[in-house]
């Protein structure tokens, strides 16, 4: 059995082990009635929606919640302080296992959810853990330890202004190589619109960048697991991403992350962006964008024919130091239940449950607007074809991502050629392995 299948099935297997006992299951949503749990979330459409929904959880279980939401950097700083101090005050936290999973697990910060899933007294009989796809389960499972349950799926998507392309007589990019050509045509024909925007902030770059490398047939990792930025196709991806920012991006792009990119797109000042699927709901709040935008997965490379942008999913975990783990687990179940995920759809949270994604509520919601349908289709492809690999294998993932972002910045600033920047990045990345 392949390793991915092995770990991918851990969450389902844990749940399946509980099946014979379910006949005598004594699960009761109100078993932890009267407890109070502390939750810490990253500022995210999921957590914003959760703040409004959590009253339903208290009504159903009698468990009260205290929610703290911080922007991502502050969230991580506070979480690290709590966990390093072995604080028992924190019960549930959001986690991006693809980023911090190996480090947090090594530190012993995650409670193992597998025994909880296997306990019929603690897990609702209709929880249906197998409803999460194997790849999503695998991302949250390390050597059979289930560290989180998934709350969404996301990745960068290609958004473009259909009205601008139509007005300027420019065809919609079908291949990745069409994007620079379209950007050049937009720049020549309408100087009032910025042709392209994407993340330029060093630490934020890899999320949007890795698709360019992959789609051109490269990879940030060599087949033997070494840094792969210097592979010819990877260099071409680096060159294209950096040149788009440099030649066609907004001034000051190197300080831009999703907030600025979305502001530019929403306010109608940019023609194309590669930005998170997660920001879809925020983009739709701007006037006219629901009508004039197109959205799809990043176009494939002309030669490679593949489209493999980043695909990630946030999860929620229970702190290993929590003294209220059964109550925390009750929250995790409720928050990731079919019913709750169905409600989160209208907040623009892409559900990681197959039954919700293919269910009538989601179908009805996407049918209301063509762009919602396009977004949902892009997410299906993202889930199927996307990649969770942003950097070569290492426990020092945030540092590795910074080295990759730095390579892009050096090219944008004209301080290194793509080949030089790639070589320097590989040298630095090798030190982190």
């Amino acid at each position: 059995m392949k390793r991915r299948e092995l770990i991918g099935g851990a969450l389902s297997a844990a749940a399946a082990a509980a099946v014979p006992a379910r006949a005598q299951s004594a699960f009761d949503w109100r078993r932890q009635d009267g407890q109070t749990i502390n939750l810490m979330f990253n500022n995210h459409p999921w957590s914003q929606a959760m703040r409004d929904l959590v009253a339903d959880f208290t009504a159903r279980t009698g468990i009260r919640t205290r929610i703290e939401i911080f922007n991502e950097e502050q969230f991580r700083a506070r979480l690290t302080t709590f966990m390093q101090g072995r604080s028992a005050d924190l019960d549930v936290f959001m986690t991006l296992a693809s980023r911090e999973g190996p480090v947090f697990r090594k530190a012993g910060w995650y409670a193992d959810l597998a025994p909880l899933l296997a306990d019929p007294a603690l897990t609702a009989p209709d929880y249906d853990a197998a409803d999460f796809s194997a790849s999503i389960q695998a991302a949250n499972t390390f050597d059979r330890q289930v560290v989180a349950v998934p709350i969404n799926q996301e990745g960068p998507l290609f958004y473009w202004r259909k009205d601008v392309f139509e007005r300027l007589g420019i065809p919609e990019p079908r291949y990745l190589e069409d994007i620079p050509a379209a950007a050049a045509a937009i720049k020549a024909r309408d100087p009032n619109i910025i042709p392209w925007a994407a993340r330029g902030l060093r630490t934020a770059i890899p999320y949007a960048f890795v698709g360019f490398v992959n789609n051109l047939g490269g990879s940030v990792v060599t087949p033997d697991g070494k840094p792969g930025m210097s592979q010819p196709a990877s260099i071409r991806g680096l060159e294209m991403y950096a040149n788009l920012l440099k030649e066609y991006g907004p001034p000051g792009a190197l300080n831009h992350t999703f907030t600025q990119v979305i502001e530019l797109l929403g306010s109608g000042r940019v023609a194309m962006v590669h930005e998170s699927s997660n920001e879809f709901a925020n983009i739709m709040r701007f006037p006219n964008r629901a009508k004039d935008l197109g959205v799809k997965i990043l176009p494939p490379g002309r030669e490679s024919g593949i489209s493999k942008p980043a695909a990630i999913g946030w999860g929620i975990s229970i702190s290993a130091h929590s003294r209220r783990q059964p109550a925390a687990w009750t929250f995790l179940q409720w928050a990731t239940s079919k019913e709750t995920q169905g409600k989160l759809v209208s907040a623009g949270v892409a559900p990681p449950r197959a039954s919700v994604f293919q269910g009538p509520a989601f179908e009805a919601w996407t049918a209301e607007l063509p762009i919602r349908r396009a977004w949902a289709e892009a997410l299906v492809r993202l889930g199927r074809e996307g990649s969770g690999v942003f950097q070569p294998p290492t426990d020092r993932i945030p540092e590795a991502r910074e080295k990759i972002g730095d390579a892009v910045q050096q090219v944008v600033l004209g301080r290194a050629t793509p080949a030089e920047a790639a070589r320097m990045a590989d040298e630095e990345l090798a030190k982190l392995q």
Partner: protein
Amino acid sequence: MVAPALVFAGVMIVFPFGYAVWLSLCEIALGQPPRLNGGANYARLAADADFWNGLRLTLLLYVISLVAQLVIGTWLGLLLARSRWARGIIRTILVSPFMLPPVVIGMMAIVILDPSFGIANWILAQLGLPPRLWLSDPDTVILTVAAIDTWQWTPFVALIVMGGYLSLPGEVFEAAEVDGARGWQRFRRLTLPLLGPTLVTAAVLRSVDLLRFFDVIYITTQGGPGTASTTLNIMAYRRGFEFFDIGYASAIMVTLSAIIFGSVLAFARLRRAVTW
């Protein structure tokens, strides 16, 4: 009588700093107890190009901002002290920038200085001047951050100078006037020396703030573009909380604390030298 003060100093100052020093001497793996590593973090500092870059940027930002704030603050303070009618209302206006939380200052800077949609470049365009990249240009980002801090804190220096000037003995200036001292000569030979202790006090207060300057940089650039605004504070924060390298981050912060302590000591000596 002094026991509460000693307990307070011990709990709130000596213990946290002592703990940081101890952490700086340890290797810390997340979730594990710290393990002494014989000063390896400090040896690593000495060989780390990023540390030296951070130190250079920290000192550069410090010198540019301090000089600008002292010079402009002194000029503004004297102007205020001499125009009695404007003192009340202008003093109120001047207080506003440094009453604002740094987060607000940072967010304002992002909005105003954004090269694409900020008002700063719009104003330059109205004046027929070329746009600037402000916080996005590695060559000017430190100057821009220094300008933001100078905008916020120069009024603070001005108010200190104004207070100091108004407390100076008036007869000295009258005597100087009788002796024919005017303008620049009077400022250089009389006002400035008399204001010496006041200016040193202002410099000490601003030095401590400037050397531990973090919030506005973090909000506006996160240390970028590249590492062009990665001062020691930013570097330590990122090492500690983003890369989970807490021992090394502590070593950076202890080193920075030593620099701050050294600068305060130097100014304390200077203050004794300029006291009249």
